[in-house]
Structures are given as structure tokens and as C-alpha cells.
């Protein structure tokens, strides 16, 4: 009989486990668990892969490319990006810029409505913008309003010195928005498609319960864009949007909807593409070799510049210009993009990467000429040796050992390993010790100056070279090596708030002067500009890819 009781104990214990499981199953079927119960199906519904969950659908809180892309699917700002990344009118039907270039007047279209039927008004922009600079909201991109956008009083409001209502933006009537700037900002219109500048309907926001509630489900967000969120929950692994019938530009929208699927494993992603579950996937570098001859394979610039930052301030050897020059000439960037990264990324020899900033004069790419600074940056082992010998003589030593910090991602680790080999081979006596860290720890270390050399990256925030060049001024938070140069600081100040602000052509030239100083001083070792390798089904067309702000835009995409 004891055995019987033991059996009973066993059965009960197992039953407990099942009870858990059963609860789970029950809840799951009730609320749909996630969202694919509601998955939109149809021949004109695009199935898209993303690598990471959406961090937030609140436009003023979002900071990552995935969130921006999804928010832009259902929200239009004053301007939107055309296929070339040029700002074109969206909610703003037209605009005027004052003669002193410090006042922008946007005329809003009258047929733009939110998905609850309320018209989109100037007050929606004022509310959204005030949220962005409100210290209580603590928007990470608030500096786009102050330092970058130079909107009147933005800096003071962010610092808590003025009230949000004093922000330099006003609404003479429901469909007119007037923005006042401190100084002319040549790229101001291109900020208007950045989601931080998107409108939020005040009344609706408050009706949802505000922060922590707003934009956490299809019911707590409004659409004024090409699509409407059909199903969503925070950090969903899949969610869907359907075409917005009330969109002012609905005639142009060909897709019936979008299904998003989070896939973190690249093998699963490619197989899901091959079996037809997905129409658009991103590939890892290793997968590119399998599919690069496939006509459905394509490469799109992602804008990120990977570079080596060197601690010029705290490491005496790295303060030596000749040693830094030796480094920058010893790195074989072509070999890295061809043999290691393998996804179409570009070898980069300039401090401002190509593909995102175009000239206000002739529309040419700021960094199109990758040989502009070949005197200071190229793969040239002879020069590397020359500089290295000079460095050895100046520093009075023959051997150098540095820690090279890199992130724990596979690709980054591989690139760091190859850079280590290249440097050690080209410059005998140099030893690089690779230190692998998580992103958070890496940032902690380099931001506090606790490093020697680090492989790091920077993605552009707006379509102007300043998004990169602004980093190297004295005391900038991202000037990790704390390099400092008065001449450089002056040029950047002249381009931001000084003499060049109202002369776009002169400013553009001055930015090249600034970049030359960075290259001449080998402040950083640029390595490569990241690209995204994608597979897109042959019946899909018209997806617009951009390296900044909105990485993928589907408004004009077709499937059929």
C-alpha cells in the first residue's frame, strides 16, 4: 500500500505541473496570447522580419530604428522622406521660410484625420513637441529640438529653466504651425520626418491614461498615416497593420497591410523566407554567400560607421600622432568588408561615412569621394611602417601593448580579431589584446575614459555631416578619447551657430575643412560603413530604404 501512496504522490506532483500548463493554455486561447490570431492575410499583405521587438510606439520616447519604422507606418509628420531621402510635404501641404531663415510656417492639409475621426491640427504638433522637450517625459532625443533643431527656448525648457509652453512653436489657427529658431538651420526640414517631431493628439493621449498606457495597444494609439495598427501588445513577437482607408493619400497606398515578425535567429529567418512565410528578411554576413547570386538578394546602406576610437587623452602612446597614423594605414578595410563582414558593407576612409548626407548645392553625397583624404588614411603598409618607425623613435620604445575592446556580437568580434592580426602583422612590436564586453559595459568603459582602443559605431541621426563631426568637439560626450583642438571647435561652432549658418555652400566647405582635421590628426580610424543584406521576394517592389530616421518605408510598396 505504501507503493500506492508513493504513486499517488507522483501523480499529484505531475498533475501540478499540468495544472500550470493548463492555466497557460487557457489564458492563451482567451486573449489570443500575442497577435497572430489577428494576422492579416491576403495577397497584398507584406510579411516583414524585424530582428528585435519594438521598444515603444510613443514617437517622443522611441530611439531605435525598428520603433521608428513601425511608428512611421501609421504616423505622418509635417514632412516625409521621398525615395531618395529628400524631405517632401506630408501633413504640411506647403511651408514658407522667412528671409532670415529663422521662422518656418507650415500650412497643414485640411483632409488629414486621425483614425478616430478628429482632424490633425497644429495643436497636435505643439503637444507632441512639448512632450519631447518636457523634462518629465525625459525624451532621449530632446536634443534634436535644442542643439540640432535650434528651436527657440528648447534648450532652456530641457534644462528645466522654462515652462514647456514657452517652446518656440505656435498655432495662429488650427491648420498653421509657426516654428521659431535661434539660428538658421539648413537641414531643418529634414528633421520633420524624424518621429520625435511627430504629432500626438492631446485629448486622445490623456484619455488613454498617458505614460505607460499610451501606444501600448491598438486601442491606445491613433493613426494619421498610411496604415492603422490592427493588433499589438508591448514587446510583441508579431503584430499587424492594415491599410488606413481614411489616410489622405490612401489612393497611393497599394498594400492591404503589413505583418511584422520578430526573428532573432538568422537561420530561422532565412528558412522562413524560403518557405514563403516572409517577404522581406535581413541576412547575416555568413548567409550572404549562400544567396548572393539570387536575384532577390539586395544590399542597402545602413548608415552606421564602425571605427576605432583611441584614448588620446589618457594613453601617452596613443597621444602620439605617428602611432595613430601607423594604425590607420595598417588596416586593410577592403579585406574586412570582403572576407569578414561580407554583407555589402563599404570600406570607409573618411570620418563622415557615405550615403546619408547630400549637398544643399548639388545634391551630391558628402562622402562620395573616399579618396579625398588618402594622404591621411589608406591601406599602405609602407607608410604604416614609416609612421611606426617615427613613433618608436619619438616614444623611445619598440613594443606596444593595447587592449582592444569590442562588443559581444559575432561580427564585431570577428572584425576586431582581423584588425588585431592586421595591426600586429604590419607593425611588429604591437600587441593588441581583445577584450570582449557587452554593449552596456563597453559604453560604460569608453564613456568614462577607461579604455585604450575600442571598436565602436555611430549611426547618423539627421541628414547632415554634423551628426558625425559634432562628436569631436572638446568635451562632447561621444568624444571618448577626449581629443581637443581649438581650430576644430571653432569651425564646428561657426557651422552650428556662427558665421556659416545662413550660407549653406560655405558651411558645406567648412565641414570638409573640419573633417580634414579629424583625418589629419587621425582622431579615429574609420573602418567600414554598415550595410543591410536583404532578401526581398520578386513580386515585392517599391520598399524605400534609408540609412537615417526611417530605415524602411512601405507607403509606396507593392506586392502582387
Amino acid at each position: 500500500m505504501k507503493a500506492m501512496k508513493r504513486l499517488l504522490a507522483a501523480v499529484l506532483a505531475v498533475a501540478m505541473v499540468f495544472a500550470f500548463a493548463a492555466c497557460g493554455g487557457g489564458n492563451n486561447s482567451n486573449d489570443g496570447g500575442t497577435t497572430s490570431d489577428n494576422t492579416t492575410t491576403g495577397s497584398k499583405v507584406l510579411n516583414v522580419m524585424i530582428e528585435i521587438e519594438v521598444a515603444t510606439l510613443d514617437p517622443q520616447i522611441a530611439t531605435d530604428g525598428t520603433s521608428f519604422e513601425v511608428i512611421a507606418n501609421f504616423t505622418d509628420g509635417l514632412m516625409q522622406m521621398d525615395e531618395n531621402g529628400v524631405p517632401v510635404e506630408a501633413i504640411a501641404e506647403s511651408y514658407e521660410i522667412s528671409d532670415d531663415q529663422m521662422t518656418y510656417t507650415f500650412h497643414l492639409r485640411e483632409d488629414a484625420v486621425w483614425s478616430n475621426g478628429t482632424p490633425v491640427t497644429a495643436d497636435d504638433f505643439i503637444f507632441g513637441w512639448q512632450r519631447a522637450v518636457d523634462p518629465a517625459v525625459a525624451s532621449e532625443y530632446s536634443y534634436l529640438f535644442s542643439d540640432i533643431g535650434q528651436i527657440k527656448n528648447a534648450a532652456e525648457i530641457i534644462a528645466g529653466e522654462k515652462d514647456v509652453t514657452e517652446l518656440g512653436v505656435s498655432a495662429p489657427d488650427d491648420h498653421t504651425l509657426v516654428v521659431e529658431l535661434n539660428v538658421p538651420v539648413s537641414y531643418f526640414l529634414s528633421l520633420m520626418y524624424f518621429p520625435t517631431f511627430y504629432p500626438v493628439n492631446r485629448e486622445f493621449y490623456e484619455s488613454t491614461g498617458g505614460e505607460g498606457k499610451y501606444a501600448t495597444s491598438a486601442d491606445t494609439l491613433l493613426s494619421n498615416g498610411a496604415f492603422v495598427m490592427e493588433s499589438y501588445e508591448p514587446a510583441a513577437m508579431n503584430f499587424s497593420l492594415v491599410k488606413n482607408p481614411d489616410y489622405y493619400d490612401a489612393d497611393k497606398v497599394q498594400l492591404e497591410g503589413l505583418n511584422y515578425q520578430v526573428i532573432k535567429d538568422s537561420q530561422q529567418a532565412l528558412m522562413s523566407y524560403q518557405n514563403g512565410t516572409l517577404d522581406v528578411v535581413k541576412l547575416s554576413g555568413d548567409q550572404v554567400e549562400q544567396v548572393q547570386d539570387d536575384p532577390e538578394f539586395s544590399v542597402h546602406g545602413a548608415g552606421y560607421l564602425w571605427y576605432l576610437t583611441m584614448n588620446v587623452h589618457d594613453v601617452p602612446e596613443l597621444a602620439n600622432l605617428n602611432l595613430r597614423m601607423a594604425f590607420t594605414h595598417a588596416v586593410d578595410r577592403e579585406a574586412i568588408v570582403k572576407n569578414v563582414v561580407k554583407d555589402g558593407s563599404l570600406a570607409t576612409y573618411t570620418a563622415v561615412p557615405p550615403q546619408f548626407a547630400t549637398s544643399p548645392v548639388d545634391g551630391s553625397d558628402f562622402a562620395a569621394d573616399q579618396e579625398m583624404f588618402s594622404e591621411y588614411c589608406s591601406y599602405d603598409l609602407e607608410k604604416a611602417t614609416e609612421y611606426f618607425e617615427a613613433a618608436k623613435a619619438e616614444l623611445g620604445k619598440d613594443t606596444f601593448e593595447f587592449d582592444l575592446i569590442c562588443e559581444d556580437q559575432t561580427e564585431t568580434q570577428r572584425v576586431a580579431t582581423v584588425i588585431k592580426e592586421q595591426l600586429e602583422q604590419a607593425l611588429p612590436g604591437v600587441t593588441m589584446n581583445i577584450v570582449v564586453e557587452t554593449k552596456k559595459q563597453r559604453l560604460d568603459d569608453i564613456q568614462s575614459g577607461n579604455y585604450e582602443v575600442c571598436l565602436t559605431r555611430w549611426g547618423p541621426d539627421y541628414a547632415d555631416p554634423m551628426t558625425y563631426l559634432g562628436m569631436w568637439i572638446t568635451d562632447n560626450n561621444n568624444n571618448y578619447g577626449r581629443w581637443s583642438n581649438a581650430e576644430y571647435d571653432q569651425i564646428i561652432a561657426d557651422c552650428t551657430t556662427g558665421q556659416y549658418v545662413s550660407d549653406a555652400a560655405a558651411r558645406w566647405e567648412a565641414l570638409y575643412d573640419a573633417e580634414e582635421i579629424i583625418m589629419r590628426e587621425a582622431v579615429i580610424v574609420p573602418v567600414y560603413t554598415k550595410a543591410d543584406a536583404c532578401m526581398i521576394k520578386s513580386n515585392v517592389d517599391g520598399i524605400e530604404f534609408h540609412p537615417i530616421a526611417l530605415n524602411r518605408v512601405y507607403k509606396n510598396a507593392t506586392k502582387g
Partner: protein
Amino acid sequence: MRRFQFSVFKINESGVSVKKYILNRILISIATLLAILLVLFILMQLMPGSPFNDEKLDDEQRAVLYEKYGLDDPVIVQFGRYVWNMIRGDLGVSYNISRNTPITQLIQNRLPISLAIGGYAVLLGAVVGLILGIISALMRGTFVDSLCTIISVIGIAVPSYVFALALSYYFGFKLQWFPMLYDSSQAFNSSVMPAISLGMFTMASIARFTRSEMLEVLDSEYILLAESKGISGASLIFRHALRNTLIPIITVLAPLIVDLMTGSLVVEKIFSIPGVGSLLVTAIQSNDYNVIIALSFIYSAMYIGIMLVVDILYGIIDPRIRLAKDGGK
């Protein structure tokens, strides 16, 4: 029949001590959980980086965010506030994964999915493991025994994500029997491959354990007695040998459930399962403190809960264990 009644009588008689025993176990569990929570808080402080050291943030913005979320307070204040809020059902908000979203909202739909898949995996692992173990024991030394041993060794040695990727390729991609990515409109079908990947280790462990336990029982004197009394075949195996094998298996099953949880971190990622395992991985990578604390706490609570249940069941059903703990009072 008489003996059975006698046993029931004994349990009733010692009812007070059962209650005391259970209460004691529950109190210890609660204290353990609080201690775990405090350790988690201290670990968060020691974790390199912060939720807000994105390269785009400067020191001032970081200070604003720290203040907003109370991260600039001393650890003990943060801990006290957290416990107070937790008692009221507030687990804080997410800093990174889903900004400003309450953790309770974040996990309410995810936890059941993970539990369901974990439950299937335990079921599968336990049942198949038992069957394999019994067959091995009964056919000791034969080809079948060797085969079962090989399966067990593979199940223990190969990590769950390798099974996950292999299953996904053959049964998801090639044969298309099951969805490769979790689809909540066909939740059970979507759970099959993850549950198999997760359950392999449990299955292998149980199979090995059952085999050795069963062999021991089969060699024991009471089985020899039973055999000498003329009991044989199915009756001998199921009524006498298997029952005595089962109890120790429950003891190993409980810690195996914990392995399922840790295994689920990777398997959930592979199958894009909207569960808590994949959430925990992302949270750790992005220093999302509240999510890490909440999920680690839930995992600990589940583990302790399962151990508690096993302990209590033991205490109720096998008086020897309870009596030993009571010091023969």
C-alpha cells in the same frame, strides 16, 4: 484492505503535525524568496553598464532618466520601495525592452505561453523517459537497452538549441509539419518542436534514472519474494517494481523543471516564442533592471514552489519523511 485503513488513520492522527510541517515549509520558502530578491537587487547594482548608457545619451540626460526612475536613490531605498510596490502588485516599468510599460502588463500574456511549453516538455520528458527506462531495465544487456542508452546519452549531451535548430530544419522547413515560428493561432502545433527540444534533457535524465532505479528494485529481496510467491509478468512489473521506482523519480523531476526554464531562454529565441524566456535574455542584454528582477523572482518562486509541493506531498504521503523532520516527537 485493513492495512490501508490503518494508514489513513495514522495520517489523520498526526494532522496537527502535517499542518505545522506545511506552515513551516511555507514560511521558509517566503524567507528564501525575500533573500533572493535582495540578492537580485545587489546583483543589479554590480552589473556593468546601466539601462541608460546608450551612446546617444549625455550625462545630463542620463541624470534626468535616473531621477525619473528613482535609480539615483540608495540601493536599500530602492529595495524597500520595490518590495512595497510588489506587495501592491506593481513590479515597476520596463526601461528598454518596452519603454515605460508596466512589467505586469509585459508578462501577463507571456508567462502562460512559457509555462505551457514547459509543461508539455515535462510531460513528454517524463512519460517517454519512463518508458525508455523501463524497457532498458527489463531488457538489460540487449540491443534495445544499448539503443535506449545511446538515446539517453545524446539527450543529455546535446544542448536544447541544437535539437531546436535541427527539428526546425527537418520538421518545420523540409517537411512543414509544424510552424517554424510560434503562431498563437495554432498554439499547440507551434509548441511541439520547442517542447521536444526542451524535453530531451528531461527525457534522457529520467530514462537513465528509471533504468538504474528499476534494476535496483528488480534485484531487491521483496521482488524475489514476490516472484517466489508466484507473481510474475505485468503484475510484477507494474504493481510491485514500477511503483517503488516512481518516488525517487519525482525527486529528480523537480530540479529538471529548472533546467527546462533555463533551456527555454534559448529555445524561445529560436522559435520566436513570445514567452518570458526570450524576454529575460533581452532584458539582461539591455540592463532592463525591473524586467530582470521580476522574471528572476518568478523563476525562483516557481522553483521554490515546485520543491515545496514535492516536499509537502512527500510529508503527507510518506510519514517517515515528516516524522524524521519532526525529530520523532
